[in-house]
């Protein structure tokens, strides 16, 4: 492959990703632009009584969740720094990442709601307590659930960045030096590790924030209604049969996207101004601050237990048609939901096929790009990838659908493949860019100097050393593909059905056992992918 790669001109190397990913994506986004020139839509938007309060709520829940998730991940990492629990933490985080957002929301909701398990355990009266634990007006339960669900993502991003730092051995030794200079483990983490880690966490944090501010499924389960988050208002509007209401939804989407972009830009700028002012604190002198091990263990265990409880509760709910308060165990068990699910074998196979092919294709496109393009050009690609993730999916998917319709790609397998490739490639590019570009090219020069053919050197040295990030990127791509609903549903045009499509449509009636069974079923393939990636990607020596 490397020989072929080396023969390719940069233009040839860039062509596949431009044709298969950049072009469709850019065209889909352009399809949104006509909405800007729709005065009626903007008028309708302005007169929507929930607009501003819903927008504030969206920003607050998304922002609060990101900050909370960041604090938790910093606490856990600082506390468990260099402890033996770290590899297990990575496996746990992978499991948490594989769990679909909606699944966690349902399980978590059943834990904390007034008729939930906790209330049954500690209250247990004839009528449920008047707790305001889900759908609170401030969106706190939504925020907390989002933070918990995003914690694994941030942990994995941070662990990958740390592993990169440690891979060169420098970070480990820098910590030794810092300790010899009189700094306690906590201080070392805050002053030496964190400042070097934060830049790598910037984009993951932006993704978490944007995701949190635009999430619909979790908000429908845990979020308030008066007002709901703006994403829910948009979702209702875009789902409407009336084209005028759709137009307002599109205008709201553009508004939300612009506000998010402005907020992210302002925050990054503010940080650039304020962070240097914190520098004197970096060098204020040694501090014996210890690692917050106790708090880390508590936070990590709590998050882990909540995840586990959510999964176990889902399993229980999937076989429990009725479980009235205050019973501690369900009165009857039936496997009707799993029987229904059993008839969805074809969608499962299609989903697995799409996930495998898109993950591989995205990987191929990304590697082709990185091998043939100078690093400076990454900026555009990564910017586009971030925009894909940052724009509300419903909007991009709508543009993509209209584009594919014009090209006659709707209702076809190639169309379905491309629709899945869009988000998958975005994630793969973002995840792979850092580690791939950080690769010390001298290893390749050494290998070549040993008269090893280029292709062998590329496979045995470069790919081998980059095995962990490449496999992680592939697993995340696989998981992302397995979770696609909106773009898939639109482009499939009723000709094909994937597992998430089955899950969403069959759950539309609010049948809890069925929803729970599908949620578990959707979590299984990504979980397997993550486990495989972490097993195969394990460093040969520790």
């Amino acid at each position, binding site marked *: 492959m490397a020989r072929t790669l080396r023969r390719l001109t940069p233009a040839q190397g860039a062509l596949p990703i431009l044709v298969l990913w950049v072009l469709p994506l850019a065209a889909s986004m352009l399809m949104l632009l006509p909405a800007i020139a729709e005065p009626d839509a903007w008028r309708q938007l302005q007169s929507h009584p929930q607009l501003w309060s819903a927008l504030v709520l969206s920003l607050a829940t998304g922002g609060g969740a990101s900050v909370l998730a960041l604090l938790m991940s910093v606490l856990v990492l600082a506390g468990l720094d260099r402890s033996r629990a770290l590899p297990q933490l990575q496996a746990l985080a992978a499991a948490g990442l594989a769990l679909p957002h909606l699944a966690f929301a349902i399980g978590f909701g059943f834990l904390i709601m007034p008729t939930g398990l906790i209330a049954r355990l500690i209250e247990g009266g004839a009528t449920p307590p008047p707790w305001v634990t889900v*759908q609170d007006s401030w969106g706190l339960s939504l925020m907390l659930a989002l933070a918990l669900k995003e914690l694994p993502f941030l942990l994995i991003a941070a662990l990958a960045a740390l592993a990169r730092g440690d891979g060169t051995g420098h970070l480990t030794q820098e910590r030794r030096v810092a300790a010899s200079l009189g700094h306690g483990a906590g201080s070392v983490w805050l002053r030496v590790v964190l400042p070097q880690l934060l830049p790598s966490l910037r984009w993951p944090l932006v993704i978490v924030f944007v995701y949190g501010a635009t999430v619909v499924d979790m908000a429908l389960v845990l979020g308030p209604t008066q007002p709901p988050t703006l994403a829910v208002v948009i979702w209702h509007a875009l789902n409407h*049969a009336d084209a005028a209401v759709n137009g307002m939804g599109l205008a709201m989407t553009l508004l939300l996207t612009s506000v998010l972009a402005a907020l992210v830009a302002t925050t990054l700028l503010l940080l650039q101004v304020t962070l240097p002012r914190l520098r004197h604190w970096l060098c204020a002198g040694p501090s014996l601050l210890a690692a917050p091990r106790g708090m880390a263990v508590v936070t990590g265990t709590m998050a882990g237990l909540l995840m586990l409880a959510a999964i176990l509760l889902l399993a229980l709910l999937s076989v429990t048609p009725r479980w009235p308060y205050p019973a501690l165990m369900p009165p009857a068990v039936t496997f009707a939901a799993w029987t229904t699910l059993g008839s969805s074998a074809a969608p499962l196979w299609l989903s697995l096929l799409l996930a495998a092919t898109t993950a591989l294709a995205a990987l191929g496109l990304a590697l082709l790009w990185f091998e043939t393009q100078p690093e400076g050009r990454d900026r555009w690609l990564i910017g586009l990838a971030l925009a894909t993730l940052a724009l509300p999916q419903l909007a991009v998917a709508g543009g993509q659908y209209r584009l594919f319709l014009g090209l006659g790609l709707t209702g076809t397998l190639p169309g379905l493949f491309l629709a899945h490739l869009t988000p998958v490639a975005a994630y793969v590019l973002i995840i792979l860019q850092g580690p791939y570009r950080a690769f010390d090219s001298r290893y390749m020069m050494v290998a070549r100097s040993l008269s090893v053919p280029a292709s062998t050197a590329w496979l045995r040295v470069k790919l081998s050393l980059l095995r962990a990030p490449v496999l992680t990127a592939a697993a995340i791509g696989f998981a992302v593909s397995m979770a696609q609903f909106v773009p898939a549903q639109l482009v499939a045009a009723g000709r094909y059905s994937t597992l998430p499509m089955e899950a969403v449509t069959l759950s539309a009636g609010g049948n809890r056992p069925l929803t729970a069974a599908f949620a578990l079923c959707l979590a299984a393939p990504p979980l397997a992918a993550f486990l495989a990636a972490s097993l195969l990607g394990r460093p040969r020596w520790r």
Partner: protein
Amino acid sequence: METTGMTFTLTRRGLIQLLAATPLAGRARAGEVWDGIVAEARGQTVYFNAWAGSPQINAYIAWVGEALQRRHDIRLEHVKLADTAEAVRRVRDEVTAGRAGSADLLWINGENFRVMKAEKLLFGPFAEDLPNFALVDIAGKPTTRIDFAEATAGLESPWGMAQLTFFADGAKLPTPPLSMPELLELARSAPGRITYPAPPDFHGTTFIKQALAETMADRALLPVQIDRQAFTEAAKPLFEFLDALHPELWRHGKQFPQTQAQMTQMLADGELLVGLTFNPNEPANLVATGTLPSSTIAWQNRGGTIGNTHFVAIPVNSTARQAAQVTANFLLSPEAQARKADLAIWGDPTVLDMAKLTPEDRALFTSAAAPGSVTQPAPAIPEPHGSWVPLIEAAWLERYGA
């Protein structure tokens, strides 16, 4: 040649005779036309775009598919939807792009129908030419031809009946509230245990329409177009009622469940006392599947509740119009309607007129009362004119939305 001669020798009397015979001849001709449609339908595939949130309904549609395959050599593909508006937008986009249709039959009513009719996205009229349409109870169930105050104009074929129905656990609520004022009383005596879904959820809007119908001075205003000013006047008692009701509701009326399904779950879990649905047989169905206890009771408010009909329609760009019509006709057959009305299958009330059926066909409808079924049906109040809905939703949002 003989016919030509006849035409030439037409007398006045002959003309009258001919005119008198036209219905018969017409029917015969219609029969021929229909036979042609059935013949053309053979081998076609019908993509039936239908909401798929209920395993029972999906199983019923699968049964329909098997029957059509066997009898008419038609392949029925259930395109599962979470929201029918999805299909409406898809048809619109396809028609705009000049592409062949991906949908051949839609399960539809209300707003979705109004939009498609207005935008000329529907094939037809075809519905009233279906042979089985003659069996529809158009007199007793006027909503089979008027969908949310919009004339169906033969663009959609009735499939089943819906009527706002409340339900509860009879063990916890022995005497159900049979009117909005009684519901308010109940809410006062059991604060925090009553609620309704937040509009624009369809069921939430229907609850408000019901309250409107029960509180307004002149119900005759409902089926006609209304403007903002008249609405404000007519809805005054409605909002007085809601203002009184809300403080007694779940979360003091500051929050509402997002969907009817969520509300049903909250009822099943024991957080709420009363649930609501548009399918009068859903409570009985939920008892059968074990979601609700066998002590479940269902009722309709004394003076009647909002009722409507759901239909099937054929998109204008369908590529299997003939098979879609055969499917719509089969859905109207006594056999299919009786199976659909069976509580053990789906429990969706029929659109047919029992009096028009043969005794054998009538016998198919064995509606034994089951736990959770409505014991005292109330009359259906037709849906208000389409112009009411945006006004209701906007006013509600304005008052209680933020």
